[in-house]
């Protein structure tokens, strides 16, 4: 039996494109329309040989297959006995599942954090001090005549961003490409820079200096230096004029700002620049959130605890302090004594000293596929792939909520993140009594 499912929401990057057409035959996905290269790779490979279908527990170095209930029971016991358990990941799953993880963290008296802390965590820290002047992507499509990508390379990281929402999109007040100007600021001449009307190459780790000079130029203050961050002052003033004279400008920024020297203060400067521009014209800013539901995870953790990520429940109520309650420091200070990793691969994406501690403590990983983290885990529990084998709510990079649908059944006996977390929660509550 063959059917085509329309308006499918893609669950890869923060674009959350919702116009995919997926053809399913006898419970298998056989074709996907409107998907970009990265999305296509997910739909083609989601059930390859690296797929985990049976829970496994490591005994003296070797993984042995166990039943779902046995794995859940053992995992719950480890987490319940821990004095400082860490729950991390949660950007590749639905807000309903993340909500369950928050409840689990509260019952355990542990820390819950998502990949935000190594992605746009610094952006949220900047917002705590400055605020943010932003909008939904449709405002850009309909109105923007100046689009800036700063330290972000969407052609690689968000392949359909330009076509669906910015320079190549068709909106109510902007019909053609020539009605819009594209500016790219980056340390390299990226694939996106090659499409730009203006490319500014900033010296590595000097974005803060450039933003500071740009703020001066926008305020009409004189910049004494003839070059800042490797950019001639005349070019800085040219960009400032462009920003002041546009009708509706938008500054998208990426990990080049959050991960380089200055981190959340680079964002301070960018948020302040865009805020100040509103005294001259209409200007907005938006972080290029990476995963399809990293934003949703922040939203649900915030409405349930008051804080967007890195929440410590050890004393029975939410406490938040990035640098104290964030995952990298908890690992490098060697403080947590057990970890539950959901839909993430920290062993591949964290610096060595953080991964070293993960290798010393019991780690439970909930993931559809083998990866570096499952290899170093104590218990591995397979899960359904959100957006393909299970549904739920996800939030686009601009905060627009969407519901992704279940397209096909997961492998036999494999449950969804939400179901797994609910099972662990019930078991932990029993242990804690």
């Amino acid at each position, binding site marked *: 039996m063959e059917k085509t499912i*329309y*308006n499918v*929401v893609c669950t890869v990057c923060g674009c959350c494109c*919702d*116009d995919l057409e997926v053809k399913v035959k006898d419970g298998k996905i056989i074709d996907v329309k409107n998907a970009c290269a990265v999305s296509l790779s997910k739909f083609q490979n989601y059930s390859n040989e690296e797929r985990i279908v049976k829970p496994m527990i490591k005994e003296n170095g070797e993984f042995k297959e166990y039943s779902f209930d046995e794995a859940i029971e053992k995992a719950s016991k480890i987490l319940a006995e821990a004095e400082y358990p860490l729950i991390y990941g949660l950007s590749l799953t639905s*807000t309903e599942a993340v*909500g369950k993880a928050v*409840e689990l963290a*509260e019952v355990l008296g542990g820390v819950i954090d998502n990949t935000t802390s190594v992605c746009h965590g610094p952006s*949220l820290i900047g*917002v*705590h*001090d*400055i*605020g*943010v*002047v*932003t*909008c*939904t*992507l*449709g*405002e850009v*499509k*309909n*109105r923007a005549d100046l689009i800036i990508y700063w330290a972000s390379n969407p052609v690689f990281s968000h392949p359909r961003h330009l076509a*669906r*929402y910015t320079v190549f999109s*068709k909106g*109510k*007040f902007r019909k053609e490409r020539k009605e819009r100007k594209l500016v790219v600021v980056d340390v390299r001449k990226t694939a996106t820079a090659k499409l730009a009307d203006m490319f500014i190459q900033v010296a590595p780790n000097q974005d803060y200096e450039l933003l500071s000079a740009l703020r001066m130029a926008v305020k009409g203050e004189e910049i004494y230096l003839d070059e800042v961050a490797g950019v001639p002052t005349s070019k800085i003033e040219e960009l400032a004029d462009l920003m002041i004279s546009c*009708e*509706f400008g938008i500054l998208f920024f990426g990990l080049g700002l959050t991960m380089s020297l200055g981190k959340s203060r680079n964002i301070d400067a960018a948020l302040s620049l865009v*805020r100040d521009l*509103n005294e001259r*014209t*209409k200007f*907005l800013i938006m972080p290029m959130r990476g995963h399809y539901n990293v934003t949703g995870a*922040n*939203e649900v953790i*915030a*409405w*349930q*605890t*008051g*804080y967007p990520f890195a929440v410590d*429940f050890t*004393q*029975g*109520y*939410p*406490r*938040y302090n990035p640098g104290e309650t964030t995952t990298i420091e908890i690992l490098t200070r060697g403080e947590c004594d057990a970890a539950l990793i959901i839909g993430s691969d920290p062993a591949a994406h964290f610096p060595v000293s953080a991964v070293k501690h993960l290798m010393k403590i019991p780690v439970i990983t909930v993931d559809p596929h083998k990866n570096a983290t499952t290899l170093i885990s104590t218990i591995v529990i397979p899960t359904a792939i959100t957006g393909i084998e299970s549904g739920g*709510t996800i*939030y686009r990079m601009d*905060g*627009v*909520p*969407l*519901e992704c649908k279940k397209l096909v059944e997961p492998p036999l006996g494999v449950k969804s993140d939400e179901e797994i977390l609910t099972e662990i929660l019930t078991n932990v509550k029993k242990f804690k009594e």
Partner: protein
Amino acid sequence: MSEILIKNGFVFDPLNNINGEKMDIAIKSGKIVEKVSSKAKVIDASHMIVMPGGVDIHSHIAGSKVNSGRVLRPEDHVKDYEVKTKVTRSGVGYSVPSTFTTGYRYAKMGYTTVFEPATPPLKTRHTHEELRDTPIIDKGCFPLLGNNWFIMEYLKEGKLEECAAYVSWLLNAVKGYAIKIVNPGGTEAWGWGKGISHLDEEVPYFNVTPREIVRWLCKINNILNLPHPIHIHTNNLGKPGNYVTTIETMDAVKDLSKNGKVSIHITHVQFNGFAGTSWLNLASGAPEIANYINKNTHVEIDIGQVIFSDTTTMTADGPFQYILYLLSREKWVNADVEAETGAGIVPFRYKKSNYVNAIQWGIGLELALLIKDPWKVHMTTDHPNGGPFTHYPKVIAWLMSKKARERIINKINKNAKRRLDLPGIDREYTPYEIAIITRAATAKSLGLKNKGHLGTGADADIAIYDLDYEKLNPSEDYKLIKKAFKQAAYTIKNGEIVAKNGEIVASPKGKIYWVNSKVSDDIQKVMLENLKTKFEEYYTVKMENYIINESYLHDSFMLNVQSEV
């Protein structure tokens, strides 16, 4: 379900004209009944006041704007938190509480129904997710339509019936409850960084005026027979002299009152009741507004009272929040939403010593005290704009006791004290009138037949306050009043005791109310045909993904409404 008998309380049930009589209230299976068996659990409410559960008509508790406010203010949360208990989840306060804490704190004050008054249709799925995680209270939300591109275009083309079909479809699609209008046309102009300064100024590109938008949506509200009138935050909010716009807006729909019913609800009128021409000579426009409302029958308001405390202002009025940022140079969040609306958030501190804040404080109370008919007044602080809802007991005490007001009047800015009429107003609200403005009038205005009263068949949502009505001398015992309303002796929700003396003892899930508006099939078919193409051009999401199905609400209460069209 268990039976409960509340004995010998002084009952205040204005919708059934009960004004402090000593009587018993019987509950069975979540409903108020005539009588119960001897097995019923007895609550001895002697020397106590019994009222229907509180109904809050306007409180920003859920959705993308509120959550942006939470993320903006970790420093607000760190000083006010709730530790988890056997029954309750942990959380934080103060001015933008997390969802669990919001539900518990309302229940502790005896409130059982709260409406989120501003949700962008495109992001209402987020609002519902948060309402699902708001325990105990029943709730609903008002979709923002005052700057909607489709509505302004239908208005320009004069297609009233097709627009009514669109509004009906939209309320269904996002499971909303009433039509909300914020700074009509002004927030759309803010999409270009501009604003609208009077009722007859044209919106850029759409060439319709705020007056036309308000009248248009008022007509549609009548055509669709929606339970609540249009709920409007007028233009020029927060601008000295804006009381004129407020009265003009009321007058603009005077002729549209359908068989004598209220045709317009003006929200948080304090922020729209400024007289004077600048911050220096700011004065209260409450007397003029009250005068107009006392002379007319088509208008009702909620006051939006200011509390002297630090809080977080948040409205869909993007341009106003920008002005507030320029005044305060505080942190500022702006979040425009494609084809629909906007939002702005600025932390703010109201000080007694500040001339403007003191006048604002006076305006709110003057409105409540000068408008004669309490059925036209709803008590709100436009939480958290005027102040957190946890301060409602203070407002109740100020309304019931002149002495309570004087204690504050003597501490506010001297010039403000001189300019306000408030010091000279002696009126003191009775418990009966308090029951009207905090539950009876609100339930009636929202069209909630089973709420806000204790007649048989009503939902068993009840609040019992430790106030001995016989001995009570409100003007003196304002401290007692404040204490009693701060922590209800008992709060009963759907026939179950949920709070006792400020402690949550049970945490059931409340229902999400929404209006299932029906129009004739052929008008809907025509409308949908035309809508489909434009939808894809204006939005960045597909129409199918815009629609929220009822199961998404988990516990939903559908109110069916038949339209004229």
